[in-house]
């Protein structure tokens, strides 16, 4: 089906094209530029629907970097399409919401906002639909970069810049680490195609037996866990709440933070058999689950409450994948995306109406905003996991897998895991109750004074999401069919029903609700617990300290290393060259003893020239003025060219004479501007260092020249003969030196002349600007 195949790149790249268009369209469309987002997202959604109804998964494969077996390959398998549907569907709703939400800014800035949002959506769709791991990485990092732009949208505020920066540091670094893991997998298995990797038992066995297995697993997990804000990398998500609310909803509830979870789902067939997989993911997942739920319960900012509870739920998903019970992933992700998306949008509406997000200053909005209140109640019920919402089914499925799933059955960890999960879920229950009670119930606060119901464009999208959470919960058989078809686990047989078949999960749900109510009542105590914890006891603090350390270290290093002293730089360059050449000589097995030295061939003029060369070199060093040193140096250069006359090499002679002349002119031109010529007052250490460098360089050059006549060198590495024979035949030139420069090694020359030109332009620019601004 070629028409369907072309839909895949269309879905992924069309948002990017629309983003580029948005950068230009704001001139004409102004604040209506956002319609582009709605159209692009809806278009992608329809495309994904079309692909989802295809009988077999559609693939789009084109060559990209064949030498490295990297391909531009996209694939519409059920789990990927499910994710893409979620991204584009919620993208449409967020686009509509943003039209009503974004304040009247300069149209240019709105254009940039929508361009970034569109590019983000394209990158996310790319992550969902990539079949090639390297392509997936590219899109993965693109989401990090675009989310950096989106989080830092209010860049006038320091908080926004800091939040965006932290998010980029954590997620982009995690992505790099993940790339290393991908490469290990690719090198071991010989392919980067996810489809091949997950379907071939042979490749999986090869990976499992190789020594790269554990490193690859840990590296890839690092990428997934940073992206999905798992402990100890969870702190970037609450900080990213400085973003405009549509961004928070889209990136930090519905899509980007789920990319890590999505990757875990993708990697499950490759790695889940290893104990390391469970051993890493379950503790981290459960710790994040509990910690996030607790922080959600104690946070005061509406968006922070939601952010922490998101972190918590992502921890739950991590644990589910860690337990290798992926059948429920589609249900869980769907439930979370609907209620959390709705609640974020409601937080935006409330902030819009009351100009605050602090839950302590809110209250009593029930009567003034009835529609928002109703939507919030439904979404919160799903969050709390109350019958018969989607959240309820998700929680039941989770408890069911804990009680009867293969991973924990009979394990002595089972009781502990269940207890932890019930506690965390109860905290989430309490947080949901607190959200509704704090904002809508109680007495109207002073902030509620001017509050009025938002326009349908604002409450419409969350209402749709909350409605989905309720309706899909009620239509249990349809939901069951859907989540089983879309799960990352091909033959998923999850049971979703309005009348629970077994009592265990239901009892746990009741315990959760009971405990949740207790937590809600005792929320003052939880708050006290938060006050007690010292500031440095958080990974957030450690991360900030580490980042500050990097900056301090880099500054200290560069101010020491880049001292501005020409002598120091020259010494460094020379020592490096000498060291490298020395290693090469030592490695090459050449020996000075092989060289036959015949002094009688020198003749009297050779001896005389050498004596004059030595004398001029001594004069350079002994000279007390700069001009004296310059003249001695020039004399030395011309004497060297006399040497080339004697030994008959006209090519080098010509070069030597010209270079000598031009550099003398050059030195004379700059002489006037040089600082005073320092000849005295060097410390003994400094002098010893200079002498050592000079000796090393001299010795190295001497050895090189001597060895170039060594028979061993001539016999073994005779590149010269090769060049000389090929020069005329292949390149049509008898002058091998020039042929090497312009033909054999033309790309090197190309780089060199580019550097030369850039140096010229720099001199031009620097001197001109200095002259213009005295």
């Amino acid at each position, binding site marked *: 089906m070629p028409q369907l195949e072309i839909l895949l790149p269309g879905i992924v790249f069309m948002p990017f094209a629309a983003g580029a268009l948005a950068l230009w369209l704001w001139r004409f469309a102004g604040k209506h530029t956002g319609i582009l987002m709605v159209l692009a997202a809806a278009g992608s959604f329809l495309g994904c629907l079309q692909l989802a109804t295809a009988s077999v998964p559609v693939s789009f494969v084109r060559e990209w970097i064949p030498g490295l077996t990297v391909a531009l390959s996209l694939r519409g398998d059920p789990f990927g399409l499910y994710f893409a549907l979620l991204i584009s569907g919620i993208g449409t709703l967020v686009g509509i919401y943003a039209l009503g939400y974004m304040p009247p800014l300069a149209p240019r800035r709105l254009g940039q906002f929508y361009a970034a949002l569109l590019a983000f959506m394209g990158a996310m769709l790319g992550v969902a639909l990539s079949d090639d791991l390297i392509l997936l990485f590219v899109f993965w990092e693109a989401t990090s970069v675009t989310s950096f732009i989106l989080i830092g949208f209010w860049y006038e505020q320091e908080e926004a810049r800091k939040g965006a920066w932290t998010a980029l540091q954590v997620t982009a670094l995690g992505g790099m680490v993940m790339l290393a893991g991908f490469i290990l997998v690719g090198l071991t298995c010989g392919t980067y195609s996810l489809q091949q990797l997950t379907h071939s038992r042979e490749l999986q066995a090869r990976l499992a037996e190789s020594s790269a297995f554990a490193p690859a697993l840990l590296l890839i997990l690092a990428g997934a866990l940073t992206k999905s804000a798992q402990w100890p990398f969870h702190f970037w998500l609450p900080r990213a709440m400085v973003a405009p609310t549509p961004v928070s909803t889209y990136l930090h509830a519905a899509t980007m933070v789920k990319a890590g979870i999505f990757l875990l789902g993708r990697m499950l067939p490759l790695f889940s058999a290893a104990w390391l997989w469970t051993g890493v993911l379950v503790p981290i997942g459960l710790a994040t689950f509990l910690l996030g739920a607790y922080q959600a319960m104690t946070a005061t900012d509406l968006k922070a409450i939601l952010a922490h509870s998101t972190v918590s739920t992502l921890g739950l998903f991590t644990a589910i994948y860690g337990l290798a019970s992926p059948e429920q992933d589609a249900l869980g992700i769907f439930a979370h995306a609907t209620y959390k998306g709705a609640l974020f949008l409601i937080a935006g509406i409330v902030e819009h109406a009351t100009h605050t997000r602090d839950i302590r200053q809110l209250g009593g909005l029930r009567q003034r905003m009835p529609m928002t209140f109703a939507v919030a109640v439904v979404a919160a019920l799903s969050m709390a996991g109350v019958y018969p919402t989607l959240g309820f089914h998700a929680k039941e499925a989770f408890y069911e897998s804990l009680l009867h799933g293969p991973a924990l059955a009979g394990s002595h960890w089972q009781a502990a895991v269940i207890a932890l999960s019930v506690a965390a879920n109860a905290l989430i229950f309490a947080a949901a109750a607190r959200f509704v009670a704090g904002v809508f119930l109680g007495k109207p606060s002073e902030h509620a004074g001017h509050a009025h119901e938002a326009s349908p464009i604002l409450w419409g999208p969350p209402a749709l999401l909350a409605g989905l959470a309720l309706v899909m919960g009620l239509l249990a058989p349809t939901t069951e069919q859907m989540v089983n078809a879309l799960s990352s686990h091909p033959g998923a047989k999850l049971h979703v029903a309005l009348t629970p078949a077994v009592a265990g999960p239901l009892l746990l749900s009741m315990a959760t609700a009971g405990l949740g109510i207790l937590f809600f009542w005792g929320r003052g105590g939880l708050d006290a617990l938060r006050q007690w914890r010292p500031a440095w006891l958080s990974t957030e603090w450690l991360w900030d300290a580490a980042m500050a350390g990097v900056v301090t270290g880099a500054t200290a290093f560069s101010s020491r290393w880049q001292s501005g002293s020409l002598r120091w730089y020259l010494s460094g360059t020379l020592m490096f060259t000498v060291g490298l050449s020395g290693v090469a000589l030592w490695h090459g097995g050449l020996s000075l003893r092989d060289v036959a030295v015949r002094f009688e061939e020198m003749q009297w003029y050779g001896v005389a020239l050498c004596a004059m060369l030595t004398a001029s070199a001594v004069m350079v060093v002994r000279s007390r003025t700069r001009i004296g040193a310059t003249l001695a140096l020039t004399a030395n250069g011309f004497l060297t060219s006399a040497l080339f006359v004697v030994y008959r090499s006209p090519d080098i002679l010509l070069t030597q004479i*010209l270079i000598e002349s031009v550099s003398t002119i*050059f030195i004379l031109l*700059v002489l006037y501007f040089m600082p005073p010529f320092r000849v005295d007052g060097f410390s003994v250490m400094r002098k010893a260092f200079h002498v050592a460098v000079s000796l090393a360089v001299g010795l190295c050059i001497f050895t090189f020249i001597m060895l170039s006549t060594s028979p061993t060198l001539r016999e073994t590495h005779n590149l010269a003969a090769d060049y000389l024979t090929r020069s005329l035949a292949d390149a*049509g030139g008898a002058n091998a030196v020039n042929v090497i420069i*312009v033909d054999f090694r033309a790309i090197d020359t190309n780089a060199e*002349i580019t550097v030369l*030109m850039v140096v010229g332009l720099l001199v031009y620019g620097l001197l001109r600007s200095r002259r213009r601004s005295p």
Partner: protein
Amino acid sequence: MTGDTPILRTVARFAVPLTAWVSIIIFLQGHNLPGGGFIAGVMAAGAGAMYLLAFGVAKASRVPWWKVSVVGLLISVLTGAGALVAGRSYMDHDIWHFYLPVIGEYELPTATFFDLGVYLIVLGTLMTIFVEMAQEEGR
């Protein structure tokens, strides 16, 4: 740096065109005999420096030297990219054979164009630096 020495000026009147001429010869013969774009460029810059010392910065800076080096880089890169158009790899040179009326058969390696770029970059860069440094002193 003013050019008020009559001796230098008189010499330069002959020496500058002569050096420039030799530099062109050296450039052209470079593929087979000692010479080539780099060294010919240095020689041309030597002629330029002599001109600058004899006749002053004002006259020497009438040529936008940095643009000369940019043009040089363009020529080099385009020569290399020409091979791409022909479906071969970057910087893959060819030898062109011509039949000229009087001279007879003549062969021209495309590397010569690349070399021309090198020549112009060396000349342009060195002269840029010379002229800018010389102007610096006039302050």
